[in-house]
Every structure is written in structure tokens, then in C-alpha cells.
């Protein structure tokens, strides 16, 4: 069949809100050919999602789309719902960011796939069931027949997203629109999902639209790319043109702002100051944090979830320690335990010369003057009813009660200027600021008491890449000025590698590898570290194509399962869910390079 599958011309999307009209998409024109992959990149608010919601007639009630959208030559914009429904779900399908909310919680996975299949193709039940099994196997869901009978909440995020893809491909669509399909997933799982999508494209010849904020994700799969900003398509072109010969400043800026795992020291990017004085500030030894978990059944033994299971490290003055790991690896728990916000189960945390578990509660409060934290979600970590001035001054009022009101105000203004906020904004509220500005407020609040150690818990993960790089620059600059130490926690290895002196990789509460920033990338020894490095998408199409992929199969196992921690040392495994397992030792393979015991790959 000749001609493009989808042709969009002069599409405009407008929303009527109580605060006036919002023009979400302006004059968008593009087309999608048979079996190609179009990558759509843009930061939050660029209108990239609304563009595709409008083409499929899924805009919310206050939105209005004008222009033209042609599916194989016939107009589908603003046609009646029944007509659209014949197309949607069979010929044009969509998958969204959050697979949990996209699946109906009370129906089994199999029933949902079968329902959609029967609605569109009218297959008899038996055949639909067979087809459902086929598509589940296509997206590499192990034990498909068992999974069919499970409910969405019984599946992990990665599994759910696979089910969504299976559902979307069940009717053999021409076009699959994937809106940030991997954003909510861990990198290793993201890599698996992307691989499935690549295979779909190659084997089934389905055209794919991949909407993402991540240039790296796009680089690995797209044939053509269009870049969106504030509702406009600012640049469109072949993948190599966009990545290697970008013309628009915004595209250049986006590419430049991406932290690169393979090249963290690019010009114009902040790197950690070459410091590390020998004085040890923090010494964590064999720290364990267990949470009791009530198990089902009247006589079942109470279990404990080992969030942090024997982690040791030291931190020197002026040093940045990066902690990387996927969700559930205990990195946030570790941070909060060091700050004594959570109680530890065992082990010691020594700050300067004091053992933190020995000091009284009132002294612990004073300790907060020296240890501070910056949180992930800038808006959620600020009290919405307080002005930012009140939020920033709160630690001062609590921790330095001798200051007068004027002194506090002056300190707040001073720190606001240091983090790049106008001091005149002192009386404004968090909801009046963007995410990046709010994160500056969060940093100001942590820095205002002049702490010796700041823990950044995913401090840049919720931000757009361009803002992310600004905040990283700011953090590095503040560190250089004040000489503080830092623990930088993130799921994103490339960010961590960019700003840390040493990097620690956590897997299910244990350290699997610990080395300086160069070694961890160039001489990674542990299979998990290797898989993690391989999974991080690099915004460089050629590098992505050439990449040797080290894949972990399946999802991150449950931290309750004691077998899970031995995933890489199967030779010592006792195959019992509850058994006390062997603890892999950390071996120093080179000075300062620790690797956990693992089976040879």
C-alpha cells in the first residue's frame, strides 16, 4: 500500500481553562510511513502528548483540535466516537506511561486482552484466547498461560507494560503510539521493553511513534525524529541529522544537556572538583535496616524486609559519593538512616567522631545542622501553605535559635541569591514556581545552615534534562564554594558518574561494586554493573546501534525473597524462599575497587 499511514496537517490543540486559553500544539504537520519509527522528543509541557491524544481523539473535554488528521487518506479528526472506536485499539493503538492505571484492576490480564480482541475482530472466545497467548509470548512474558489468569496488581511494572504492548499489538495494528512507555520503569527493565519494541518494528512491520523526553531512548530505536517545544515542532529530520547535525538551537541545547555515561567530562559540563582531603567525615560500617513485614496467615513467621543489608563506606571531606541502584535497592533508606530519620537495625554510623546511635534525641536535632538532605520531588518537599522564605528559614529558626528575625531574613536572601533565585521572591509560594526553581528552593533550604554533608536523594530525577543540567551545575558550584561533602543518590548512572568522585552500585540492599568514577565505567566487573551500564541509553544513534547489550532477564526480584540477593552467585544458592543465604563477600580487585563475589559470566 502506498502513501503514509498517518498524515497530520496544521493540527492545533487548544484548551479552555479557568485561567484562560492554552495553546498546547501549534500548527503541527507531519506524517508517518509504513513500518517506520518516529521519535518525538520534548520536555514537559511541550505538547508532545497532547499532539497524539488529539490525533486519536482522546483529548480531555476542555480541549479542542482543529486541522486535519488523515489515516490512510481518510479524515479521522473530530469524527464520531463509534467510527473512531473501530480504528482505535485495532488499527491505531496506544500505550501510556503508567501501565497500572491503564489496566482495569478487577479483570485478569487475559480477560482484558481477549475482550479487546473480540471487540475488534469478533473472534470466537477460544481463538481469541489462543491469540492472546501468542501475543503474550511475543512480548516475552514467561509462563504466559499462568500470567493470563493473574490480575494487574500481581505483575511488576515491567510485566504490566509488556501486557499493554501485547494488548496493543493483538489486533495487528498499523500504528502503535507509545507515550513515554518506559519512563516509569527501571533502566534494566526499560532496556528490555525497548528491545521488544525494536523487534515488533522489525518483525511485524508495525509503525511506531515513540514519544519521550529522553534523547537516549529515541536514539536507539527511531528512524526519524521531531523535536517539540512549547507546542511547536522546532525541528524534524532523519535520526542521524538530528543527532549529528542539529540545526535548531533548542535541539543542540537538548543534546548538550543530556548527561553522557560514556563521556562525563564533556566541555561545558560541571565535574567534581579534584579534592578529597584525607579527613574522614562519615564512616558507615555494616549498616543494616530491616523492616518487619506482616505475612499472611495466622501462624506465619513475621518476616523482615532487608532494605539495607550490610553496607559499609567512608566519606571524606569535600568528596562526592554516588550511589546508584534501581527501585527497591535501598538507596533512599540508606540515606534516611544516615540522617537518623529512620532507625537502623544493626551496624554503626560514625559522624566525625560521634556514633550517631549513641547520641540523645536533642543532640540528633542539632546534628541536622551539619547533615542535610535535598529531596526528589521539588514541589512535594515544600509545604504548599508556606512561602518559600518561610520554608528556607525553617531550619535556621529551628537550629540556630539565637538569630534575630532580621538576621534570618538576611541569611535567607543571601542563600536565595547563591542558588540563583531572586531575593525579592521571598514571599512567593511554591506553586508559583517551576520544578527547577522549586528544586533551587529545596537546595537553599538544605544549604542555609551551612551543613558539612548534603545528601541529594534523586535530587534531579524529576526535572527536565535542560533544568537537570543547570541544577547539577549549581550543586557542583555550591560544593566547590563551601567544601562540603555530598552523597548523591540516583537511579541514573550517567548523572551519578558525571558528578561523583566514587560510585557505589547497590543491588537489593547490598553493595555489588564500589569504585572511582572512571573505573566503574571502564572496568566494571560485576555482571549487574555491566548490565546497568549497558542498559543506560546513550543519546548517540551510532553508539546505540553498535552497543553490545548485556541483558538481565526478568524483573528485579522481590526483596523479601532471600534467594534474590544471590542472583549473581547461583552456585551458593539454597533454593528456599526463607532460608538464610550465603553472603557474597566484597573483594578488593584493585586499590579502592571492590566487587561482590559472583559467578563467572
Amino acid at each position, binding site marked *: 500500500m502506498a502513501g503514509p499511514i498517518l498524515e497530520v496537517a496544521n493540527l492545533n490543540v487548544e484548551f479552555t481553562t*479557568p485561567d484562560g486559553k492554552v495553546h498546547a500544539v501549534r500548527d503541527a504537520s507531519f506524517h508517518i510511513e509504513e513500518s517506520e519509527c518516529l521519535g518525538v522528543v520534548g520536555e514537559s509541557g511541550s505538547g508532545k502528548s497532547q499532539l497524539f491524544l488529539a490525533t486519536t481523539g482522546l483529548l480531555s473535554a476542555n480541549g479542542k483540535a482543529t486541522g486535519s488528521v488523515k489515516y490512510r487518506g481518510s479524515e479521522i479528526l473530530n469524527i464520531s466516537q463509534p467510527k473512531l472506536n473501530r480504528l482505535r485499539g485495532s488499527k491505531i493503538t496506544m500505550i501510556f506511561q503508567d501501565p497500572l492505571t491503564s489496566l482495569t484492576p478487577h479483570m485478569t490480564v487475559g480477560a482484558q486482552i481477549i475482550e479487546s480482541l473480540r471487540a475488534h475482530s469478533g473472534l470466537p472466545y477460544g481463538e481469541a484466547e489462543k491469540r492472546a497467548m501468542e501475543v503474550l509470548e511475543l512480548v516475552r512474558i514467561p509462563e504466559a498461560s499462568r500470567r493470563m489468569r493473574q490480575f494487574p496488581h500481581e505483575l511488576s511494572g515491567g510485566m504490566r507494560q509488556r501486557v499493554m504492548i501485547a494488548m496493543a499489538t493483538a489486533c495487528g495494528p498499523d500504528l502503535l503510539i507509545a507515550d513515554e512507555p518506559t519512563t516509569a520503569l527501571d533502566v534494566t527493565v526499560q532496556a528490555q521493553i525497548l528491545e521488544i519494541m525494536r523487534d515488533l518494528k522489525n518483525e511485524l512491520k508495525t509503525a511506531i511513534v515513540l514519544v519521550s523526553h529522553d534523547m537516549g531512548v529515541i536514539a536507539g530505536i527511531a528512524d526519524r525524529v521531531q523535536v517539540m517545544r512549547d507546542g511547536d515542532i522546532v525541528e524534524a529530520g532523519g535520526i542521524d541529522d538530528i543527532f549529528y547535525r542539529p540545526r535548531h538551537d533548542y535541539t543542540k541545547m537538548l543534546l548538550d544537556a543530556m548527561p553522557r555515561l560514556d563521556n562525563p567530562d564533556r566541555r561545558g559540563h560541571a565535574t567534581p572538583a579534584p579534592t578529597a582531603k584525607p579527613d574522614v567525615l562519615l564512616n558507615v560500617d555494616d549498616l543494616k535496616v530491616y523492616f518487619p513485614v506482616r505475612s499472611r496467615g495466622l501462624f506465619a513467621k513475621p518476616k523482615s524486609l532487608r532494605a539495607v543489608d550490610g553496607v559499609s563506606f567512608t566519606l571524606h571531606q569535600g568528596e562526592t559519593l554516588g550511589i546508584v541502584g534501581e527501585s527497591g535497592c535501598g538507596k533512599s533508606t540508606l540515606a*534516611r538512616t544516615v*540522617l537518623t*530519620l529512620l532507625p537502623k537495625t544493626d551496624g554503626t554510623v560514625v559522624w566525625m567522631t560521634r556514633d550517631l546511635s549513641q547520641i540523645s534525641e536533642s543532640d540528633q*536535632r*542539632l546534628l*541536622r*545542622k551539619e547533615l*542535610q*538532605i535535598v*529531596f*526528589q*520531588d521539588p514541589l*512535594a*518537599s*515544600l*509545604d*504548599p*501553605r*508556606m*512561602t*518559600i522564605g518561610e520554608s528556607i528559614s*525553617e*531550619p535556621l529558626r*529551628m*537550629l540556630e535559635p539565637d538569630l534575630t528575625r532580621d538576621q534570618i*531574613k*538576611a*541569611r535567607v*536572601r*543571601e542563600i536565595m*541569591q547563591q542558588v540563583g533565585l*531572586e*531575593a*525579592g*521572591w*521571598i*514571599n*512567593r*509560594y511554591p*506553586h*508559583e514556581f517551576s520544578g527547577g526553581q522549586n528544586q533551587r528552593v*529545596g537546595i537553599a*533550604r538544605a544549604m542555609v545552615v551551612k551543613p558539612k554533608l548534603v545528601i541529594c536523594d534523586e535530587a534531579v530525577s524529576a526535572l527536565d534534562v535542560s533544568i537537570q543540567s543547570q541544577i547539577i551545575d549549581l550543586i557542583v558550584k555550591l560544593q566547590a564554594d563551601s567544601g562540603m561533602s555530598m552523597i548523591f543518590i540516583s537511579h541514573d548512572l550517567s548523572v551519578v558518574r558525571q558528578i561523583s568522585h566514587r560510585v557505589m552500585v547497590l543491588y537489593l540492599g547490598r553493595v555489588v561494586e564500589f569504585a572511582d568514577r572512571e573505573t566503574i565505567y571502564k572496568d566494571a566487573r560485576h555482571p549487574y554493573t555491566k548490565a546497568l551500564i549497558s542498559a543506560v541509553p546513550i543519546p548517540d544513534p551510532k553508539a546505540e546501534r553498535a552497543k553490545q547489550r548485556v541483558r538481565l532477564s526478568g524483573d528485579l526480584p522481590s526483596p523479601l525473597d532471600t534467594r534474590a540477593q544471590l542472583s549473581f552467585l547461583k552456585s551458593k544458592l539454597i533454593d528456599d524462599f526463607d532460608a538464610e543465604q550465603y553472603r557474597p563477600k566484597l573483594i578488593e580487585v584493585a586499590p579502592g575497587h571492590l566487587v561482590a563475589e559472583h559467578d563467572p559470566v
Partner: protein
Amino acid sequence: MSLTADRTAELVGRALDVKGRSLWEDARRRLFRNRAAVVSIVTLGAIALAAVFGPFLLAYPYDYIDYSVVSCAPDWWPDPSVLCNAGGTHWFGTDSVGRDLLVRTLYGARVSLAVGLIATLVSLVIGVTYGATAGYLGGRIDELLMRFVDVLYSIPYIFLVIILMVIFNRNFFLLFVAIGAVEWLTMARIVRGQTLSIKQKEFIEAARASGVNGFGIIARHIIPNVFGPVIVYVTLTVPASILAESFLSFLGLGIQEPLTSWGVLISEGANQMETAPWMLIFPALFMAITLFCFNFIGDGLRDALDPKDR
């Protein structure tokens, strides 16, 4: 801190301080754009003003009995078959002992509104403190406090009120206590639920990391943030209290003669419904309008405070 940095910050700051737009101001703006809510506020204000000042301006005291105009219709009453017309300034007619119905309706408004507001205030104070404490402390204490609430819930409150009335005699003050004692239970549950969800928020953790103690967290971070849903619930508790009072009065357990409330008036009116319908219509109309107003304001507040939940 250096002196110059201090000075410049001072100068720059003083000159340019931007006034922030708080969430409360946002909510107020949205509320005033809601037509039903604004009309309700105005109507309710008018009723409240009339209840407070009206009786001073009228010709008859609320307990003045005039046997010459027993159960008389107002002069403008359209149905000519009524026994008598009250004449003069009895705009709402008279009741079964010849008292002016307008002044009694306004007096009833005083009592009903007062009961509504005071009972709500009682429930607010007890409920918020109780709920916030239970929610913030959590664990065993929460369990204990909330099970106590469950126990109180399970007591049939009409029984409770009747027993109280029998023991302490009928008493204006007791009415507040009885209604407030019932209404605070729901308030406590709502506040506890809100507190539990706010406690999970990152800014509470941030406050702890800033060295704020437990009391400071409840007072400065939790209570201001549960206020939104609480205010909405308050506007719904007031009409509930008014209804509860009129229900008790209707049963003869509430306000005592010659003092009156809408519940009492409606109860009397209901007895005379066939011969003197105005005795039911006017107080019932006032009460219905008031309840409507509170409910519309509550709706408007909910939309204004939490536009995402609409």
C-alpha cells in the same frame, strides 16, 4: 556573613519583594467566580443579619401573646377561606396563641444558626485535635483512639440524648453538647485520614530533616494543610447540626417554649398544616434555604480548594 553582602541583600530585597499569591487567595478567587456559592453567601448573610437585627425592628416581641388573632393568616394570603386575617404588621401571620410568626421565625433562625455554629465549633475543636493527634502519632495510640470513636459511633444518639434530657432536664446548653458530641466523631475521622496522607508527604520529612519537633510539625505543617477539607466539612456540619436540632425539637426534646427554633416552629406548623399552612411554610422555607446555602457554599469551597478533584 560579610557586611556588604548583608547590605546589598537588604537593599535589593526591600525594594523588590514580590507579594506571593497563596493557595488561600487562589481558592478565594475561584470561590468568588462560582455563582451559586456567591449567591448562597449573600443569601445566608442576609438571613443571618435579619436573625440578629430583625427582632429589634419589628413591632412584636417574640413571646407576645394576642388572643384576638389566634392562627390568623397574613393579610396578603391568597386563599380567602381562612378563618381570619391577622391584619396590620403580621406579615407572616400568627401562630396558635396569636404570636407574630415573622418575629418567631427570625428568633428561630437565631437559635438554629447558633446551635449549628456552636455545635460545629465544638466538633471542630475536639475533632481536629483528636484526629490530628491520632493520625500523627499512629500505631497503637491511633488504634486505641479510633476504636474509642468507633464505640461512640455505635451508641444510638437519640437514645443518648433522651437519657441526657431525662437526667439533666431539658437544657439549651445540653443541646450543643449532645449534637457536638455526635458531630465530632466524623470530623475526627476525616482529620485523621487527611493527617495520615499528609504525614507521608515529603515536606513533612523535609521538616523533620530541618529539625522541627513533633509539635511544630503538627501545628505548622499538618493542621494548615488539613484545613481545606476540614473547612468543606464544616460547611456541611452546620446544616447537619441544624437538622439534628430541629429533629430533636420536632420530637419535643429540644428548645423549650417560649423560646423557639425552626424545628419547634416546623413541628407546630405541621400540626396545623391543614388549617394554617403558613405556620409550616415560612419556617420550613427559611430552613430549606439556609440548608441549601450551606450546601452550595460547601460545594463551592470544595471546588475552590481542590480544583483537581472536580
